[in-house]
């Protein structure tokens, strides 16, 4: 039984998306639970990807290709997980703050979070504080992540946190910030819960916060 989970993890690591989808279906047909396949197959595979990326053995495209294979597996699982009301790792609302149109770094974090099993709600770029508030109310995520690439727009991270406080939803979520000019000190200063210098670290921290 465990062999097929190992096989899923290995194929996911190699980015074999079609193979992963087939194996996930096969595992379900053999009677495994969706949660088991998710945790011990797909997420276990992504854990190895994350570890090897952090160690410098994998490159970004290889992680993205693995994340894509993860998605192929998730496509098979998702309807079942929803039916059975089995939780995923957690929901994550992400966006680049108001006034900032930079997308690439935020997208990388998003893809890696999805790869780690998060359900990510992407608000896009130039996201006004009100849109973050609405998203928190609607999706009730565990974590909110904000991105900014400019020193002139990172101040809007502070404004967004204040708006979440004023709306009374600040304490229902954990808040993470990141982006080239952002530092751990700045994150603390504006009252964020965490700062991540890069995408893999963001995933690691998000998983801790979501527990």
């Amino acid at each position, binding site marked *: 039984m465990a062999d097929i989970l190992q096989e899923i993890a290995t194929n996911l690591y190699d980015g074999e998306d079609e193979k992963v989808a087939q194996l996930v279906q096969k595992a379900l047909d053999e009677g495994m639970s969706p949660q088991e396949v998710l945790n011990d197959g797909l997420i276990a595979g992504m854990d190895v990807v994350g570890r090897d990326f952090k160690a410098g053995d994998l490159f970004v*495209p290889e992680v993205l*290709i693995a994340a894509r294979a993860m998605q192929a597996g998730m496509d098979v699982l998702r309807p079942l997980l929803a039916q059975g009301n089995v939780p995923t790792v957690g929901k994550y609302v992400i966006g680049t703050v108001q006034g900032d149109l*930079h*997308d*690439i770094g935020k*997208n*990388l974090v998003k893809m890696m979070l999805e790869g780690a099993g998060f359900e990510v709600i992407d608000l896009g770029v130039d996201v006004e504080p009100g849109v973050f508030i609405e998203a928190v109310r609607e999706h009730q995520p565990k974590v909110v992540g904000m991105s900014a690439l400019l020193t002139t727009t990172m101040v809007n991270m502070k404004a967004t946190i204040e708006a979440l406080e004023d709306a009374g939803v600040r304490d229902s979520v954990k808040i993470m910030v990141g982006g080239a000019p952002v530092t751990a000190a700045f994150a603390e200063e504006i009252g964020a819960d965490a700062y991540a*210098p890069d995408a893999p670290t963001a995933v690691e921290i998000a998983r801790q916060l979501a527990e």
Partner: protein
Amino acid sequence: MTEQIPIETMHPSVRMLSDEQVEAIHRTSLDILSRTGIVVKHEGARRLLLEAGAWESDGRIKIPERLVTEALASAPSRIPMYNRLGELTMPLELGKVFFGTGSDCIFTIDVETGERRRTTTEDVERIARLSDGLDQIDFVMSMGHPSEVPPEDAYLYGFVGMLRGSTKPIVYTASDRRDMEDIYEIACAVAGGEEALRERPFLLHYAEPISPLLLPPESVDKLLFCAEKEIPVTYPPSPNTGGGGPITMAGALALGNAESLVGLVLTQLVRPGTPFLYGMNIAALDMKSAIVSYGAPEWATTMPAWTDLARFYGLPVWGAAGATDSKVVDAQAGIEATVSIMMAFLSRCTLVHDVGYIEYGTTSSMEMVVIADEIIRDVRHIVGGVEVSERTLAREPIHRARPGGGFLADDHTLKNWRWAQWRPLLLDRMRYGEWVEKGGKDMTTRANERARQILAEHEVEPLPEDVEKVVRRVLERRKRNK
């Protein structure tokens, strides 16, 4: 779209001399040979030249243009070099560029202790093994002059060290004919006989005249030995500006060219068709310290110039790069190595030695070899040029891109990133925090670690036992015949 004719990729190159400049230097060299003349302190070579049509006056041998023209006509345009396993790995021909280490450093920087100390046979073998494990290094030289053996045996032991340490082609030096004979005996054992060695040479000899205008006896003797046995040979003079050569680069080139052509003429007189690697070494004699500067821009300027001369003659060419005057592996070392390696590539110098020299060639450094390996890898990417084709123009990926969204996760990126983007081995691109976490190591520290790792892990196919027997016999004979 039907299959269209591909657009040729341009690979950047440099010419230092115009046709007119090449011809002016060539004619000046012919003038030096026929009017000024050279001193040949070797009776056999003197007779060879005189019988072929040279003459002697004022104690100098004067060589007419005809001898040069005939030698150029009989010298091969290419020297196919093999490794000691008999595989063609280094076809020396114009347009190709091969890199390797240098010979006979007095000192080495101990890779374990960082101490600058005298080199030993073991160092030669270890640096050869390191070079064997570096994929940008094509051939090995000794990088050390063994100090633990009698001086007259140092070259022989150095050769054995290289042979044991690496399977890559060897460029070797020697002190005299006895060295040449002993090394030849070992080389024949490696290749499987004289004919096999002639067909698949894995070694090339480096002898040199003394600039200006002097051919010493042992040097000529070694050159003639190579011609007799058809061992590939190079005979680069060193008319360093202000030292062995005039202070001006053109004068140094004209003189060096004349001296190199004498080497060519001699080999072709002994045996027409002897594989001869044309070239010279032109450093600057520093006017403050009087050292011969290996990092001087004059070297990086004259090397492409004599490579232009080599193209004019249709001969493969010798050069040098990846060396520094710095006493440590620092920013200066990086600058000097990069400038020279870049020019070696851009000019298409065929065989480029001295990679890994520090302290103006007095000392060898494994860290420097490892760093130069990375520089060569980097510059190789630059001279690769820009492929312009349907797959690289990325028409469709650009068309489907979301404005501001980027290409990071686009299929085109995921499919092509491996070949489309260069990735460093040693250069650091870590994020600051990660760099600190991993020890905050500078380039030289990382190079040291890589060198030690290669020494610990890289395995070299050992010499077959019958060859080792010959090696031991030759070394024993040396001990007996003190």
